[in-house]
């Protein structure tokens, strides 16, 4: 049996929006998260670790975009996350 359509997104545009926010937003969140980590850990170690974690995080965020009911909520959430992580990365301290 295919998945029950009752629970899936019906509108094509919402679907597209979710895919976009999952792919692009998820990517940016994942990137900025690891950039923020470089403020706390040695750069090389963060980079090499991110080769695994960044992809897993990205894929998870892509899935998460489908789990959140409204696409705009995901856009908002991911934007906030990117801003927060970039902020940490660009903090003027040490």
């Amino acid at each position, binding site marked *: 049996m*295919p998945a029950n359509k*009752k*629970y899936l997104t019906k509108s094509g545009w919402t679907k597209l929006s979710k895919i976009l926010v999952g792919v692009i937003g998820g990517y940016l969140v994942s990137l900025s998260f690891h950039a923020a980590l470089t403020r706390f850990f040695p750069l090389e170690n963060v980079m*090499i670790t991110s080769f695994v974690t960044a992809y897993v995080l990205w*894929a998870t965020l892509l899935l998460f975009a489908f789990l959140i009911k409204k696409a705009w909520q995901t856009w908002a959430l991911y934007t906030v996350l990117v801003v927060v992580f970039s902020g940490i990365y660009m903090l003027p301290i040490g």
Partner: protein
Amino acid sequence: MDNRKYNIYFNTHTVSGIIICAILYVMFFAGSFTFFKDDITAWQKNDSQLAHKGAVKKDFNYLIDSLGKKHKLIGRDFDFTIQRNHSGVYVAMSASHDSTNKKKKDGEGGGFGERGGRGEGRRGGRGEGRGEGRGAVAAASDTAGRRGFRGGRAGKPDSNATMIAASATRGDKGKAEMSGGGDKKDGEKGEKKERKGRGRRGDGDNAYFTYDFAKHQEADYTTGYTMGEFLYRLHFLAQVNQVLPFRIGVPFGYLLAGIVSFIFLFALITGLLLHWDKLVSNFFTFRPWNKWKNVWTEAHTVLGVIGFPYQLVFAITGIILIFNSFLIVPYTQLFYKGNQEKIYKDLGYGVKSEFKYTYKPLQAKANVDSLVAIVENKWQRSDVSTVAIRNYGDANMHVVVIGKPQTTAQMNGQGEWIYRVRDNRVISERSPLADAGYLATFKGMIYHLHFGDFGGRPLKVIYFVLGILGCVVINSGVMIWLVARDKKSIPEGKRKFNFWTANIYLGSSLSMLPVLGVTMIALLFLEKPGQPEIYHWFFYSWLALGIYFVALRNLERVNRQSMFLSAVICLALPIFDGLVRSNWFWVTYAQGAFDILFIDVLFLILGVISAAIYWKISQRKIAPAAKTSASAPRRKAQQLEEAATA
């Protein structure tokens, strides 16, 4: 798990899986055979590496001397990256640091340096072409990170540096290199651009090529091309790079392979979550004599769970090794202000130390061979992986030897030995068996896990089996998808579409094993088969058989016939090897040519398994008809199901 989540996992898993099924199958199939790349190469060339191991002497002095006949060597840097099977070395020679040094004119007649551009140009014309031409060799060396890697991926899996370095296929500068293919004119243009692009001092006649220690000459790529190399490159879709008629700035095949790996990762995560609640109970449920739909579902779940860690490893390491540009490019911009050289050095590729050029000639003379011998003697249970020379002939000339532990001694580690020629002094030394540190350990794990090179042949066999089981998981997944949609309630048009999707998928995937066997048998009869022959035999027979299977429009017959063909061809392969080259099992065994023997045995086993499956499905086909007790409608339904699925 609430219903909504379950259905979302279900839907995303299905859609992502169906999108990538065909390409992923090719990658898994070719990748599984790639574990035996060296064996396949030995088999094809009838030249066992195991029978005469260690016979090749690594003669660096001779190599440097012959380079010196074509080039003025003073002020240059060299990186010699040794291939894992120790038969050859990737050479990367930089331009001279000495800005007063003029290019030696008579060197243009086709020596090593010129070949760096032209030789690969030839190759470019052959087909591998764009985006691989220059990069193919350049990327192989540790220097790749700095220079040639943009052109594409290296020709060998062995050189660790290749992988991450080569996958960063990007940048405008790279285009000059990527256009290194074609004819000589093109090559020259490319070189000129390079020089401008990099702003390097001295003349820009750097060279990258593979050198064969046994033959004492530059290895010719197209004639050295083997089935092993072909399968290796197929598993990351290198051949697809030439498909697009226009350039998109990155090799299309690698990009596609990277995207497929990522979607595969996504499908694995959703698949795991989907089955999470019933993971344990489903694992112990396998009823092969049940209805077809249950057989597919249970096979998919059970094999998926068994193979999950393996597949997860390959999804992740696969992206890293083929298209890490997703991360490397932004990192280079963010953390290194676009300085690619620096990021690769920081990630532990090549020689990190810088050596100043002094413009003073060197009085002493360096004997690289004896230096390497000293280090090899010093580093027990390790292999020298790179020999680098900095500032050749300058007072500040250094020789750097980099080594890695053999996996039987230690999983990861990187030894480095720096020697100054001027005063015959060892500047610094770190043993390969010293503590590797976080970076080298993590990086090493990525490679070891992907190549399966840490447990000898038994591990490779396990990897191979798990890889083929991955193919089965993909196949059964597609069958679940099809059977679940083969219902009266689904509109006719959709059902047709579904059937054709599955039909084309099965036709192209199930034809791969017979096609591989046919190509390898054909190689036995060809005189010195090279890249074009392998391309023709493999792709044309794949096309022909694929079209035939699709035209059957009957999945059951496709399945049966492909099993029949696989059985016949795979069993024929060792027999032909015996008839044509007298490589009977007992002969190769007696010679100690275990790599050749292994391939023969591998195909014997594949043939026997195919025959067994063929026998089983033929039996099964008869069984339902013999059942008279089944009520008519049920029998009808069963037949329908079988026709659509088997």
